[in-house]
């Protein structure tokens, strides 16, 4: 009994409320003429699409760099990879591999620079990360206009210069993961491809955190002075974690695009960090502690609410307040994490 209480406590009140809310939505759904099976598959689909971007939070939280508000930088690496892959004109699943391949060097270079920068501003990483993300998105907006892309699928038709705001991945890697190993029973369908893809990377991160370097990274996040006194090069660990986060961000956006079907350029990536940040916080992470479980629970809860509330609300009260509610819940969650006393001084 006591254990149950402490378990509930560690689960946290906000999470409890959100879980309860989501469960209530699923209970109400049949009465609002909503197909539960289809909703569930929707939630799972969104999970597969978004989970890796949430996973991208983990390395930086572990090394004590705080929440990765600079995720847009990783996303930009992914976008560069994606556009370059399409530029080659190679179609089909290979283009997905190509995109990953192309985005990797960018992610490493950007992550390295970003990590170096964050090492010089210890203590206010989050604020600066936010603005690094914003500035890089704004900078790339200019670049999308002037980079010499040629592929007709991507370039504005009438001027022949500059990329479109949204580019379809149809014919390239649209649903490459979604359609592999998918299983449908009635209205319920599940794509094992996406889930296995996520599981693979989640496993890699989990395994990494068990190695010597991974242990060192966790120690840096837990108590940087201790780590330094134990002979760990803090800056190196932090930079490594930032590179990992950035690369996962790149992968995450590619995974998102294959499910969503479009590459969003220009201002698209600007605020993509916020949902990922609040998802991992909803999953039970704090500013300096996060686990893979937090990622999984958080993504399911967040995406569950995002996909369920609009339909249920629309059918019940014919008013779609869901977007506003989502804003309040997700930003409220971040605010809650930031103002908690236990959340160290980062």
């Amino acid at each position, binding site marked *: 009994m006591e254990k149950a209480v402490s378990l509930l406590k560690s689960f946290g009140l906000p999470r409890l409320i959100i879980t309860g809310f989501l469960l209530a939505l699923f209970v109400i759904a049949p009465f609002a003429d909503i197909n539960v099976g289809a909703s569930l598959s929707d939630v799972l689909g969104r999970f597969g699409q978004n989970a890796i971007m949430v996973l991208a939070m983990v390395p930086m939280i572990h090394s004590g760099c705080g929440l990765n508000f600079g995720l847009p930088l990783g996303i930009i690496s992914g976008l560069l990879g994606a556009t370059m892959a399409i530029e080659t004109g190679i179609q089909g699943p290979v283009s997905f591999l190509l995109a990953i391949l192309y985005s990797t060097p960018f992610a490493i270079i950007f992550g390295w620079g970003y990590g170096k920068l964050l090492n010089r501003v210890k203590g206010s990483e*989050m604020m600066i990360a936010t603005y690094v993300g*914003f*500035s890089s998105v*704004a900078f790339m907006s200019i670049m999308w*206009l002037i980079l010499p892309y040629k592929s007709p699928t991507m370039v504005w038709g009438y001027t022949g210069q500059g990329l479109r705001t949204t580019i379809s991945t149809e014919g390239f890697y649209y649903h490459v993961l979604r359609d592999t190993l998918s299983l449908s029973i009635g209205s319920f369908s599940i794509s094992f491809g996406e889930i296995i893809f996520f599981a693979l990377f989640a496993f890699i991160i989990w395994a990494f955190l068990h190695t010597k370097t991974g242990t060192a990274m966790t120690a840096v996040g837990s108590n940087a002075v201790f780590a330094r006194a134990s002979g760990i090069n803090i800056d190196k660990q932090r930079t490594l974690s930032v590179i990992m986060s950035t690369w996962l961000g790149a992968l995450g956006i590619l995974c998102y695009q294959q499910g969503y079907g479009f590459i969003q350029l220009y201002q698209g990536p600007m605020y993509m960090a*916020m949902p990922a940040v609040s998802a991992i916080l909803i999953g039970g992470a704090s500013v300096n502690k996060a686990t893979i479980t937090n990622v999984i629970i958080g993504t399911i809860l967040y995406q569950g609410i995002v996909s369920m509330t609009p339909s249920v609300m629309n059918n019940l009260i014919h008013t779609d307040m869901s977007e*506003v509610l989502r804003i309040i819940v997700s930003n409220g969650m971040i605010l809650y994490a930031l*103002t908690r006393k236990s959340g160290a001084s980062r």
Partner: protein
Amino acid sequence: MKREINSKDVRNFLSNNIVPIIFIVLCAACFPVAGYSPEYLADQIITRIMRNSFLVLSLLIPIMAGMGLNFGMTLGAMAGQIGIIFITAWNVVGIPGLLLAAIIATPIAVLLGWFCGKMLNMARGREMITSYMISFFMNGVYQLVVLYGMGPVIPIHSDQVILPRGYGVRNTIDLLNVRKSIDNFWSIKLFADENGVGGINIPILTIILIALLCVVIIWFRKTKIGQDMRAVGQDMEVAREAGIKVERTRVLAIVISTVFAAYGMVIYLSNMGTLNTYNSHSQIGMFSIAALLVGGASVSKASIKNVFLGIVLFHLMFILTPQAGKNLIGQAQIGEFFRVFVSYGVITLALVLYEIRTRREKAESAKTLALSQMQEAQA
């Protein structure tokens, strides 16, 4: 020896004022490319100083209290907008309308500022990111109120304001009734041709208002509360030991800033003439902060001088870049993206420079110790 000191001074000056210098260079480079007449630019700049200085001035007080850049000023902007929505719905026009909007906005701004201040006291050491998230969070609440609450819960029934569906405020509201009513109340036109075309408009009343706020801020620095804020800003613990109520002082700083921001928003909107109900406030904080930083302010130090220099430089860039981009590459959009990039880049740069500078100051003490040992060894 003397030259050495000089070169060091120059380097110090450069590194302390790097942001304004970059901007001056940038504007100087864009000016001939954009091809605007100086007269047009002067008129535009004056309009924009009138429009924005109140908003930017509202940022000064939290900086004084050591709470950094108040991204939560967006909350004040929301309060101002609610005031404006009400007077438009009631059809109260002209200067009385704006005054009434300000009166309505005040208690809302106080409440929001109090909430923000309390939150920031819970997140000591990371005020900026927290105030930033508060502005997002409150944006949600604002939308809930404005989009769903206005009409059924809050009795507003003006067709001009409310959507045809019966609740929620329209996307854009035309503020014809209060548009430029402060500016036009008493204004002088300089350098206009015989027909009164062109030239530079000088809105005297707005200038008086802004001057008044500057005086208030200068007076504020001299009051006991201003002194307390400076003390809290330097060292909370020392201030607490001396018996200053630190938490209360910090909350007050945010409340005052939020209220000024609300008034600033009322002035801004009356100058703009339209209210983008769901957008106007959200970027205001970002632009105001960027403008202040462009003027050479830092996270811990800002003055009235920074405000005006910042607005002038920032808006010169704002006006020049799209045109320069168009003339140079043939795409105005590049200029628009460029100015967004510059706004964000400037904030990033200023934050990073501030952090690095604080770090360097801390490292200084080790250097003096090494130096003294060296001197000892020599002796």
